[in-house]
C-alpha cells in the first residue's frame, strides 16, 4: 500500500529483465560472444550474426517478453477479479476459445496470419459468451462468473478434443505444438508489446481500487468503489490481454498462474506494485524459458511451456517454503 520503497523491487526486476534479454539474444544454436553482440548492436558484425541477432533472436525475445508480461498481468487481474489466488488467464475458457479458433483455421489449411486472427476471434467469442451467460438476469457474483467460465472451458476442451480427433494425422504436430504454446510462431513483437504497455498504463490508476476489490465486492463498495463497472472493465481488459498473448504464442501455461502468486510472496498484494512487477517478472521468466528451449538440445527445439514449468515449479516451492518457515 505504501508508495515508499515501491521503486526498488521494480528497478531490480527491470535489471533482471534486461539481463535476461541480453542473455537470450546471445544464445541459440550458436552462442554469440559479448564482443560480437556489441558490434552487432552498434551496426557492425558479420552478416550471419546480424541476421541471427537482429532478425531472429531479438524479435523472438521481445515476443517472449511481451507474452510473458501479458500473461502475468492477465493472471494477476483475473486473480483479483475472482478473488481467487488460483485463477489464471485461462480459467474462464478464453484459451479454449482461442485454441478452437486456431485449430479450425489450421484444419481448413489457412495461412498462419489467419490462424492468429482466428485465435483472437475465438478468444473474443469465449469472452463474450461468458460475459453474456454470467450476466444472466441481473444478479451475479464472482463465483457465478467463475462457474460459468469453468464450465465453458470444459466445453471448449471437448470441442478441441473433437477437432483433434477429426484431424488427419499429418496436421496433428502443428496443432499440438500450438496447444502447448510456442514463441516460434510469433511474428512482429510490437503489437503485443504495445498492448502490454497500454494495459499497464490503463490499470495503474485503478491499482488502489483493485486492492480494495481484492477484499471482496461488498467491502469494496463500502469503500467507494463502483464494483460492477470495475469488474467488467477488468474482465474485458484481462481478456483482451490474454487474447493478445495467445494470438502471439499459443496457450503457454503456468506463467499467468505462478508469476503473480510468486510475486505476492515477495512484494505483497498492492496491485500498483504487483501489476508492473508481474509484467517484468513474467516477461523475464518467458525470455529465459525460451532461451533454454532454444538451446538445451540445440539445434532441436523444445516447447517453451515445458521449461516455464521446470523453472517455475522449484522457484515457487522454494518461496512457499520460505514463507511458511
Amino acid at each position, binding site marked *: 500500500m505504501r508508495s515508499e520503497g515501491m521503486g526498488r523491487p521494480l528497478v531490480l526486476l527491470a535489471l533482471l529483465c534486461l539481463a535476461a534479454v541480453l542473455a537470450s539474444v546471445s544464445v541459440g544454436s550458436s552462442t554469440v560472444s559479448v564482443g560480437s553482440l556489441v558490434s552487432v548492436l552498434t551496426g557492425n558484425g558479420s552478416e550471419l550474426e546480424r541476421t541471427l541477432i537482429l532478425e531472429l533472436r531479438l524479435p523472438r525475445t521481445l515476443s517472449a517478453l511481451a507474452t510473458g508480461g501479458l500473461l502475468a498481468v492477465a493472471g494477476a487481474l483475473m486473480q483479483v477479479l475472482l478473488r481467487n489466488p488460483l485463477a489464471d488467464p485461462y480459467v474462464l475458457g478464453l484459451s479454449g476459445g482461442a485454441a478452437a479458433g486456431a485449430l479450425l483455421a489450421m484444419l481448413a489449411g489457412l495461412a498462419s496470419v489467419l490462424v492468429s486472427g482466428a485465435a483472437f476471434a475465438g478468444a473474443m467469442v469465449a469472452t463474450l459468451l461468458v460475459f453474456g451467460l454470467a450476466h444472466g438476469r441481473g444478479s451475479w457474483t464472482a463465483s457465478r462468473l467463475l462457474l460459468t467460465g469453468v464450465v465453458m472451458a470444459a466445453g471448449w476442451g471437448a470441442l478441441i478434443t473433437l477437432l483433434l*480427433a477429426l484431424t488427419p494425422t499429418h496436421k496433428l504436430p502443428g496443432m499440438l505444438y500450438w496447444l502447448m504454446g510456442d514463441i516460434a510462431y510469433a511474428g512482429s513483437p510490437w503489437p503485443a508489446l504495445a498492448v502490454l504497455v497500454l494495459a499497464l498504463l490503463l490499470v495503474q490508476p485503478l491499482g488502489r481500487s483493485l486492492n480494495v476489490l481484492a477484499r471482496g465486492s461488498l467491502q469494496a463498495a463500502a469503500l467507494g468503489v463502483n464494483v460492477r463497472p470495475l469488474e467488467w472493465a477488468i474482465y474485458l481488459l484481462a481478456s483482451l490481454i490474454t487474447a493478445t498473448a495467445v494470438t502471439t504464442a499459443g496457450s503457454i501455461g503456468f506463467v499467468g498462474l505462478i508469476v503473480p502468486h510468486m510475486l505476492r510472496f515477495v512484494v505483497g498484494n498492492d496491485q500498483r506494485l504487483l501489476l508492473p512487477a508481474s509484467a517484468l517478472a513474467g516477461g523475464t521468466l518467458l525470455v529465459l524459458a525460451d532461451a533454454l528451449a532454444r538451446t538445451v538440445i540445440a539445434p532441436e527445439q523444445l516447447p517453451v511451456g515445458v521449461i516455464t514449468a521446470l523453472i517455475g515449479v522449484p522457484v515457487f516451492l522454494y518461496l512457499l517454503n520460505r514463507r511458511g518457515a
Partner: protein
Amino acid sequence: MITVVAGLEVALTMSVAAADLCAIDALDRNICLPEPAERVVSLSPGATELLFSAGAGAKLVAASAWSDYPSQASELPRVGDSNRLDLEAILSLAPDLVVAWVDGNPRSQLDKLSALGLPVYWLAPRDFSDIARAVENLGQLTGTPERAAGRVEQFRNGLASLARQYRGARPVRVFFQIWDQPLMTINRDELISKTIELCGGRNVFGHLPRLVPRVSIEAVLEANPEVIVTAGEAGGGSRQWLDDWKQFPQLTAVQAGNLFLEPPDLLARATLRTLEGAQHLCQTLERARNAL
C-alpha cells in the same frame, strides 16, 4: 535363359505356397496362413498401396481412412482412422489377413485382434529394401508372388539405375522441410533422407538423433543448405513455406534460387511410388546442382 530362370522361380514359389504360406513381419514374427488370404483389411494408406502393388488389390475388403492410392482404394469401406480403429467393423468383415503399420496403428488395439485369432502382419518400411521385401511378402501371403516379384524387380532396377547415375555427382547440401510451424525436418534414418543420399545430396540435419527433429531457423541459417526442398502438404500452402526463406538472402539456397516443391504424395509414403519420387527428387537436385 531369362525365361528359364523366371519359370524356375515361379515353380519354386508355388511349391512353397502349396506347403505353407509364411512371411516374417516387421516385428520378426513368422506369420503363416493355411491358404492365400482372400479377405484382407489394410490399416494404413501405405499398407493399402503396398497391397495393391503386390497384386492383392482385389482381395482388399476394407481400408483405413485416407487410403486414396490407387484410386480404387478410395472406394473401399473404411474401418476408422489409422490411429483410432473401429475393431467391430474389422471383426464383422471376417478378414483372413490384417495388415498393420508399426508407426501408425495402436498396438493395444491390434493385440486384441491377434488375441481373437486374426493374423496380423506388421509393416515398418524404413528403407528401400524393406519396401521391396514388404511387397514380396504381401504377394506371398495373398497368393500373387509372381506379380509382386515383377513389380519389385522394376523397383529395384529403377533404384539401381539412379544410384549408378548419381554415384559420382557433386554432393549438395539439402534441407528437407517437413513442416513449417513448428519447423521440422528429418534425420538420416528417414526414407526421404535415404532418397536424398541416393540422388547425391547430403541431408544437413542427418546427424540429429530424432527421426523427425524440430529445429530452429537459426540452425538452418548456420547449416546454410544449398537446396531447400519440401514435399509440403496436400492441398497447397507449402509454396509459402519456401517463399518465407527468401527473407534470408544470405542462404546459398536462396541466392541460387534452389527452393523446390516436390509432389507431396510420392515421397510421403514408403511404397513403390518412392521410386517415382526419387526420380523426381534426383532431377530436382540435379537442377539445383547446376544452378550453384
